[in-house]
């Protein structure tokens, strides 16, 4: 049984672009039917534009402009659907491949580029309203699930969930993957989330591979079933179906925001690219497998669906042009990025003054200054 054969799977849009809801999808069909043409075209546009950005970033790494790039290629539907389901007041804790989510929440993708170019460890300020309450990437797998859970505890302690006012109540959504699901921190996060009934959604993108190790090594039972063991209602969704991903996340966030406690979602998807630009998938997976998943491409099925609804050639051309423009802009701005002053490494180690840091900062400044001015042997 492949993960997509599970009778619990929620899917509305089949791989061929036809609307054929699975039995588990029935509760979500009405919400999806209510989406307007503009909503649907927006979801498609999100996916296409960020894929163009992601491809450009991959190319920039190949050309030596970035140290590393972890492509989001193939996971656009799970990310667009879940990110568009969140409300502006919600809080987002990504892992490190959530370029789609970050952009939708308002983060400038160049901030991610700066991280991968070696200019910063963070990239953006989660407290700046333009970033849509998006926390920074976490590279140590699963650690952010605990931060999200603590944050969600704080939301509840502050009385900002469960009031019944959807405009005011907040929820937290945390992203992680099938590899991270084996980490102890994810287990502990679910224990705490269940104990404190946090307003939180655990969003697992099962992209089938943790670098070279298949998901069957992480778990012999479908990953969504783990949530039930903690007392967290859990759903499995076709993560390559943007409509189903949107609908299940919207409902889970609504429930969490309303005070019903945490929810977990396993979005079954596929990492169509490499783990990162340092990876070589030909060493561990077959081209047959890649071909089979390419036939389930999240963008292709949405394009077929929209064409069937009568979306115009002009619309598709416009979306492609926007993607190209974002890619061109990314290349231009990457090439224009400057460098860092060495002094900056001392600036934020502590929030308050620290004697040793101050001393080392001064030493480095003096040392660098010692190279200024006339050198020995040079005329004055």
């Amino acid at each position, binding site marked *: 049984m492949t993960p997509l054969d599970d009778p619990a799977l929620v899917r509305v849009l089949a791989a061929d672009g036809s609307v054929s809801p699975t039995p588990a999808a029935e509760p979500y069909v009405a919400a999806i039917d209510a989406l307007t043409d503009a909503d649907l075209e927006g979801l498609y546009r999100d996916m296409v534009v960020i894929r163009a950005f992601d491809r450009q970033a991959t190319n920039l790494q190949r050309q030596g402009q970035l140290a590393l790039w972890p492509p989001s290629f193939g996971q656009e539907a799970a990310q667009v659907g879940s990110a568009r389901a969140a409300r502006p007041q919600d809080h987002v804790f990504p892992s490190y491949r959530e370029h789609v989510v970050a952009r939708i929440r308002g983060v400038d993708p160049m901030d991610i580029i700066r991280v991968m170019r070696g200019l910063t460890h963070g990239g953006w300020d989660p407290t700046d309203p333009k970033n849509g309450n998006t926390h920074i990437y976490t590279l*140590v797998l699963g650690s952010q699930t605990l931060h999200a859970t603590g944050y969600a505890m704080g939301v509840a302690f502050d009385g900002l969930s469960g009031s019944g006012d959807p405009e005011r109540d907040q929820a937290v959504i945390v992203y992680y993957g099938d590899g991270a699901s084996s980490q*102890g921190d994810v287990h502990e996060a679910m224990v*705490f989330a269940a104990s404190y009934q946090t307003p939180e959604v655990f969003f697992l993108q099962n992209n089938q591979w943790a670098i070279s190790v298949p998901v069957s090594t992480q778990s012999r039972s479908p990953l969504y079933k783990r949530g039930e063991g903690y007392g967290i209602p859990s759903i499995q969704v076709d993560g390559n179906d943007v409509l189903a991903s949107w609908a299940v996340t919207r409902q889970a966030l609504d429930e969490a925001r309303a005070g019903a406690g945490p929810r977990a979602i396993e979005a079954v998807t596929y990492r169509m690219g490499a783990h990162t630009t340092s990876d070589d998938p030909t060493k561990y997976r077959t081209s047959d497998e890649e071909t089979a998943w390419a036939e389930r491409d999240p963008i292709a099925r949405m394009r077929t669906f929209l064409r069937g609804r009568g979306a115009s050639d002009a619309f598709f051309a416009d979306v492609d042009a926007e993607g190209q423009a974002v890619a061109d802009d990314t290349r231009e701005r990457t090439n224009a990025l400057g460098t860092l002053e060495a002094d900056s490494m001392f600036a934020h180690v502590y929030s308050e003054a620290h004697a040793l840091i101050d001393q080392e900062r001064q030493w480095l400044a003096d040392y660098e200054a010692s190279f200024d001015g006339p050198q020995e042997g040079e005329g004055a």
Partner: protein
Amino acid sequence: MTTALPFSRAINAGLRRAMAENDRVLLMGEDIGRLGGVFRVTEGLQAEFGERRVLDTPLAESGIVGTAIGLAMRGFRPVVEIQFDGFVFPAFDQITTQLAKLTNRLEGAISLPVVIRIPYGGHIGAVEHHQESPEAYFTHTPGLRVVSPSTPNDGYWMIQDAIASADPVIFLEPKAKYWMKGEVDESARALPLHASRVVRRGTDVTLVGHGAMVSTLLQAAALAESEGVSAEVVDLRSLSPVDYGPILDSVRSTGRMVYAQEAPGFTSLGSEIAATVMERCFYALEAPVLRVSGFDTPFPPAKLEGAYLPDPDRILEAVDRALAY
């Protein structure tokens, strides 16, 4: 106006005052609420402030510290109790990889005022993992501050100052001294959080240490006096950053220094301080800086802790060696 309090009650009083003054202060840990902690340091606080301010958490140290980080991101000031020193390591990743580095990663956008209280050290005859001195792991980690009070008065004030700090603080409590009484002056703090302090004046040798070791150093100094040797004693108080001023002033006047610690000596806090003192006081020294440490073995079964832990005699043996140069 002072009150005599046991060390554990002094920390309790400091926690109570910090919680009363700032409703964003939360206590988190295992058995700290209804039971009041295995050492009763938080006794009565849940009854006074409620279950939302004093959390009996699930039994998972990484989970406690990881969620404390999330709460701090949200503007709370969590004070975490790790039940025993040897139980901090399940939380080590969250402390060193996340808590210590997040503010730097965020370029200062979010401060993480999390305090991690750890009852540390030996002298209580306990089973394995209950008598360790893990300070060097934390002093080696940029982004953390590490402090350790040696008296009830310092316990009362330093816990409040640690909670007030915008940065993460590892707060090492000398568990052997929880029952030791001392005068607590609730009207005014004596020193800033990161200051070291001369606790006994002397002229022949400088003895330096922190936490429970300060009592041992004072005992050694009293014995030395009976043998005609005048020892000055410096209480480190802050393990990171180290306030070198009083130490260097003392060594420049005595010309000799012995550092004592319960932790294993190899790549320890004592190693760092000895190297720095030798760099900065080279011409004032009459003898190399000597260290007295726990041995480089795991903390032994309790019946051997007397042989493992530095006592006044081992400190005096080092003093004799220093004086023999």
